[in-house]
């Protein structure tokens, strides 16, 4: 039982972030120590929460001790614990990389923004209130605006303005959706919504459907689902490498919200909505996957390649989610963990390459880069993981997705398998241009670059995470199965909220 610890993943980064801004503005070393320390503590807390959520039923933290659904609640269940733990692990790797490569010295306030970003992401995963979810979305977004333009530059700023404008539009839509939802159901507590959605009067069904569609549009923006994906390639390709790696978990916030709402609040058995959500998510997911794969093949630069690989992985993830069966949800959760780690590793490796190369274009071969062999090996590993080839977890993840969507095999299987081939081609082309053809052009002098051991440790840790996910695929999928089962039967989640009736 975690009691007050449930709010720690929100409070800890908030306090440390504020302390960094106020007290250690001018001392980078001190910032690094405190920020890294806070992330390590966050990881420890998230592991304890993961354990508590595994052995105990969902636990609710009543903010201000107001009873649900009148007050705001944070809910620790298996899904939210998993996502917070994933975020903490990713944040730790990214932070090691940032410190190893001195990215945090290229602009100001990196660590403060990083901690605020962690606060927003953890909060979004933990909250049990739809409006509070909006607030945490804004917290993580406002921190991400700062991180995205970290280091500055014309293109980065312009891409940043687009990114902010697009997300503000998404936020407005989110508020329209929440307003409609509140007008129809009279509640914003997620557990209460799950109860009320099942017993909605028939006259309210149309308005409820409108609200649900608006909310899922917002989640689709966050999750970069076609046709709302166009902000992602420009943003991720222009963001600093480690920031793009951290953003790998931000698209997952959209996927998480779709799972939370699509499985728990408006399952296919809901009279008002029926199969509405699955009908939207499946075609969009298929298109996203195709577009992402073509983008990987056609990308002109390495960073755009990594960005389109992220789009493709979101496509696969949303296809898995759209099954809305326990098996499909379990496969989606496994793939979500895999694609977060694989995507982040890819962005970090691309940053390693860009740092050592005159440009990251794929149209012309350049002389070999420093530590070329090691980086090429890492790129190969992360390309295998991203494309979904054996032996890494991408293969197992895609296998689980294919298996879970057996009844739609005619449509889903050819798309997933065909795009996998295209993605493999894209990675092979990029890898051979960057690492093999480089040796054809004779270098004038041996390339020099400080080895920055810590950055390789960070990439290695992410790849080690993928290996663990592969080796322990059995226990992990068993755990995901139990998580998916608890999502599809949310009785325990609702009971934990101890909902009061309005007098």
């Amino acid at each position: 039982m975690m009691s007050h610890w449930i709010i720690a993943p929100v409070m800890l980064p908030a306090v440390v972030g504020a302390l960094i801004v106020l007290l250690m503005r001018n001392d980078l070393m001190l910032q690094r120590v405190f920020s890294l320390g806070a992330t390590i503590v966050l990881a420890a807390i998230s592991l304890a929460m993961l354990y508590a959520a595994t052995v105990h039923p969902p636990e609710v933290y009543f903010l201000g001790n107001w009873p649900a659904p009148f007050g705001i609640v944070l809910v620790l269940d298996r899904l939210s614990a998993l996502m917070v733990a994933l975020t903490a692990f990713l944040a730790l790797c990214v932070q090691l990389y940032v410190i190893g490569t001195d990215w945090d010295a290229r602009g100001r306030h990196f660590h403060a923004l990083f901690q605020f970003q962690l606060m927003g992401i953890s909060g979004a995963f933990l909250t049990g209130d739809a409006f509070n979810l909006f607030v945490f979305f804004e917290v993580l977004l406002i921190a991400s605006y700062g991180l995205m333009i970290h280091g500055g530059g014309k293109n980065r700023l312009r891409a940043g303005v687009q990114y902010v404008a697009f997300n503000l539009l998404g936020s407005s839509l989110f508020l329209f959706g929440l307003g409609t939802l509140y007008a129809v159901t009279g509640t914003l507590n997620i557990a209460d919504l799950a109860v009320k959605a099942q017993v909605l009067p028939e006259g309210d069904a149309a308005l409820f459907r409108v609200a649900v569609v608006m909310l899922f549009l917002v989640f689709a923006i966050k999750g970069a689902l076609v046709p709302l994906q166009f902000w992602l390639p420009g943003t991720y390709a222009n963001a600093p490498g480690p920031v793009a790696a951290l953003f790998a978990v931000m698209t997952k916030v959209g996927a998480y919200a779709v799972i939370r709402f699509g499985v728990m609040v408006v399952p296919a058995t809901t009279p008002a909505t029926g199969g509405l959500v699955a009908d939207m998510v499946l075609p969009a997911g298929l298109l996203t996957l195709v577009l992402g794969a073509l983008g990987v093949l056609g990308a002109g630069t390495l960073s755009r390649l990594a960005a389109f690989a992220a789009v493709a992985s979101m496509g696969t993830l949303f296809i898995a989610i759209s099954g809305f069966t326990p098996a499909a949800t379990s496969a989606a959760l496994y793939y979500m963990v895999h694609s977060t780690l694989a995507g982040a590793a890819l962005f970090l490796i691309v940053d390693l390459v860009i740092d050592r190369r005159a440009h990251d274009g794929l149209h012309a071969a350049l002389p070999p880069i420093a530590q070329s062999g090691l980086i090429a090996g890492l790129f190969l590993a992360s390309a295998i993981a991203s494309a979904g080839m054996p032996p890494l977890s991408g293969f197992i993840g895609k296998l689980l997705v294919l298996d879970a969507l057996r009844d739609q095999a005619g449509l889903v299987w050819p798309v997933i398998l065909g795009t996998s081939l295209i993605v493999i081609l894209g990675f092979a082309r990029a890898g051979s241009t960057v690492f093999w053809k480089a040796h054809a052009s004779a270098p004038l002098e041996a390339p020099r670059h400080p080895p920055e051991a810590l950055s390789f440790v960070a990439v290695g840790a992410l790849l080690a995470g993928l290996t663990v996910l592969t080796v322990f695929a059995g226990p992990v999928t068993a755990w995901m199965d139990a998580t998916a089962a608890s999502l599809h039967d949310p009785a325990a989640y609702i009971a934990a909220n101890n909902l009061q009736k309005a007098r």
Partner: protein
Amino acid sequence: MEALVASALGLLTAAGTYLMLRLRTFPMIVGLTLLSYAVNVFIFAAGRLVTGMPPIITKDAIGYADPLPQALVLTAIVISFGMTAVIVMMALGAFLEAGDDRADMTEGDGQADKPSGGGGAP
């Protein structure tokens, strides 16, 4: 009153959407602001439109105004205010760096760097 609120909302949203679609950052930001005004009024209306009703439980009340949307709208106002400030600063930064306030990116702007040798301004 319903017709008035609804048409005001529609007008604000339409104007905001139109301005959002412009290519310059300044009209875009004004459009975002109009849109956030529309959202704020909309959330207010989500609690049903009533006049002269108390929001707090009293013995002799014949009806109530929903107090929750007022709390929600306060949060929404604060957030959209902060976000507008952020995007104004970023747009200014982009304007000062690039020399124009276009919101779109031209071909090649998406590349992190220019090809070596080929250099030159976009």
